[in-house]
């Protein structure tokens, strides 16, 4: 994981771009690993949010039970929380590396 973070930091510092483009760029360079996991988590949370929205609208039409809606919403909440925590940690690590005196 630390290597993956270092990769991101390295590519970010060499090209002098912001965090998002650094992520996009290392995706080509780095093989499977941390970034894929991060992407997976992001996709999971997006899917969970979509599902909870579908459920909520189904409930509005009286087609889904209250329990299903709450379950889908809680699931989406946990997924988003996970994605945000990982993103925050990631950015924190990146900034820490950037602050290193050279």
């Amino acid at each position, binding site marked *: 994981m630390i290597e993956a973070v270092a990769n991101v930091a390295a590519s970010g510092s060499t090209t002098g771009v912001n965090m998002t483009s650094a992520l996009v760029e290392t995706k080509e360079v780095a093989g499977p690993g941390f970034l894929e996991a991060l992407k997976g988590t992001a996709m999971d949370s997006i899917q969970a949010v979509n599902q909870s929205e579908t459920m909520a609208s189904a409930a509005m039409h009286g087609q889904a*039970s*209250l*329990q*299903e809606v*709450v*379950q889908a919403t*809680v*699931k989406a*909440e*946990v997924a988003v*929380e*996970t994605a945000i*925590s*990982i993103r*925050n*940690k990631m950015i*924190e690590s990146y900034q820490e590396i950037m602050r290193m005196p050279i």
Partner: protein
Amino acid sequence: MDPISAAMKIASSGLEAQSLRVRMVSENIANASSFGAAPGADPYRRKTIVFQPDFNRALGADLVTVKKIGVDPGEFTLSYDPAHPAANADGYVKVPNVNPLIEMTDMREATRSYDANLNLIEQARGMASATLALLER
């Protein structure tokens, strides 16, 4: 799927099962004095609910589902009321086999079980949040 999400999904199936049970109890209580229409006709028959485990391949765990909503084959008691439209030739009316005491007990049990499942969802969510809190400093 991670076990915490699975636990929430399973508890949610429990919530649905117990809410169906509450629905059944309310049907029974509401119909406790639904007599037959024709002379000598059967009145409302008490409903029963049967749960069964339902293996979910995606979760690799057993959810709970309602196997069937059946009827209680118990005898109807007779009550003497010759004026009633459903009274038979001897003046007796068949009373629904709903026992309010049994229904109340059933309802309490369903409520407690519902609460237990709700608590489980809350616990699972708390566990997920507490684990994520490790990432924050």
